[in-house]
């Protein structure tokens, strides 16, 4: 990814937003400002600043902090990023059938893996402990609805 590619992504977002503007239903109410005006102005503004950003990036005036000395990504960056995203995916997939603690522990293990911790029993133990403590504090003590701790929890 470079600033120029980011600008192209931004312009794609503007395109999608502009398409969504066309599907906003017209209001039957008589009013000075309808439901489209403010979103349209915002999409126009975003398109303008995205274009200026793209132009500036094309001229090489925009920064990528990871290119600065001492800030470059170390080898394996994509794997680490994917590992972190996998943590989120695991939680989303398993939280309804398995309750909170197991998916949260697995999610924690993936996050720890993204920070170079090995996938082993120690990691499982620590992440399991973190998930259990959070469930007890949030769900039991503070009454936040996190669902059951485990699938067979009564």
């Amino acid at each position, binding site marked *: 990814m470079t600033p120029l590619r980011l600008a192209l992504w931004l312009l794609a977002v503007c395109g999608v937003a502009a398409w*969504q503007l066309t599907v906003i*239903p017209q209001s039957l109410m008589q009013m*000075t400002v309808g439901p489209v005006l403010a979103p349209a102005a915002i999409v126009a503004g975003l398109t303008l600043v995205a274009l200026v950003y793209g132009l500036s990036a094309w001229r090489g005036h925009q920064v990528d902090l990871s290119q600065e000395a001492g800030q470059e990504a170390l080898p394996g960056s994509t794997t680490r990023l994917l590992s972190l995203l996998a943590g989120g995916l695991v939680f989303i997939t398993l939280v309804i059938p398995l309750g909170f603690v197991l998916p*949260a522990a697995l999610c924690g293990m993936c996050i720890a893996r993204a920070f170079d911790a090995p996938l082993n029993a120690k990691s499982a133990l620590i*992440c399991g402990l973190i998930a259990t403590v959070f469930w007890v504090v949030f769900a039991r003590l503070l009454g*936040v609805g996190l669902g059951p701790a485990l699938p067979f929890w009564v």
Partner: protein
Amino acid sequence: MEAFDALMGGFAIALQPTTLMWGFIGCFVGTLVGVLPGIGPALTIALLLPLTYHVPATSMFVMFAGIYYGAAYGGSTTSILLNTPGESAAVVTALEGNKMARRGRAGQALATAAIGSFIAGTIGTLALTFFAPLVVDAALAFGPAEYFSLMVLSLVAVSAVLGNSMLRGLVALSLGLLLGMIGVDLQTGQPRFTFGRPELLDGIEVTVAAVGLFAVGEAMYLAWQGRESKGGEVMKLSGSLWMSKKDWGRSWKAWFRGAFYGFPIGAMPAGGAELPTLLSYYTEKKLSKHPEEFGHGAIEGVAGPEAANNAAAAGVLMPLLTLGIPTSATAAIMLSAFEGYGIQTGPQLFSQQGGLVWTLIASLYIGNVILLVLNLPLVSLWVKLLKIPPPWLYAGIIVISTAGVYGAGNSVFNVGLLFVFGLLGYLMRRFDFPAAPLIVGLILAPMAEQSMRQALTISQGEWSTFFTRPLSGSLMAVSLLLLVAPALWQRLRARPAP
């Protein structure tokens, strides 16, 4: 006098054991998040928002205030001992504080930071106590046109003045405004930008956006970089926590000067805490009898900026409580918390929720004392926290973030959105886009649209109302100036001298 009586009423509630306990928890958690890199007060308050349905409003806002002040205190510890500021306003503290620690004077650096924070926090709170009612009186004259113009000023200021690039600030702001438009239009009932998904009809939850950008985004960036697991060097807690007579002599003026920079600048829409800390640092450098020590560990260079930072934290509460305008990400999240309780912010907050506001202000005084007690004697505990290995620290942060978002509505869709915002946060971090304009834009977009519609209905569709009403016109002019002046100034400076 009226303010004083109301404040005393606030103290009566704030000193009740339950309220005091929430204040203490807030200060403790605030210091903790200030110390830990990667977590800030905005994220913490956003994570705790789901609790707002279970705890009374007064207790919750007293805790939030404690978190807010505590984070400002705690940030100095990381700056001094790790040379890694826990929050952006503590960057200047790291310049001299870490050098002092390297010279074996970490204890004195932490002491001047904590005492300065206490003094400046108290001065800032005093100013808030006595100036806030005056601002409320002035704000009662505001109509929808003035409110719209004020929001425009706030949005422009947060995007154009703060951060490293006005262009990137404006991109972040526009994205935030666009995200704020998602959901059902409250006036006409028409869905906007929902892609036919019922989950988006209520709009994007501020908690999801803030936690995704700040927690997941930061973790993604650090994981992608792969340098965090190598760890930083934590300095030993060397030197006594007692300051010598000479240290006191060199610190006290810097504390007061820092406080007088911090509060007024923090209270401005474009203020923030970064500018006053920088101004304080350069003032101390200019006025010091030991300018040669700057860059090598000058105590004034820690005392002044830390005081400015804490006074600015009080200043930021001024537009939030009196006008309902957030000027920082944390203030934006607090505004969202007010909305969560169904409390209308703005000048009427003081009349309709006087008890809550004055208890909150009273708790700031008490919080300052709690923080002074918490920070110095417990400093070795905070140092231990800095040694938590990054894999477990970030596993904890992401699991608590996921739990917070999931717990708010048992929605896996929102958890998915959390990681999408995380990716956005990663990109913003990598390409140096500020996150605050996005959050402020997200929250203010529907409010600004509503004010605009009301103003145009009153003026029977006359757009000139925003420019012809004196106050509204002045606010618009200042916004325009903020947009244009930096570019003009840069162009003038670039022009070669004749």
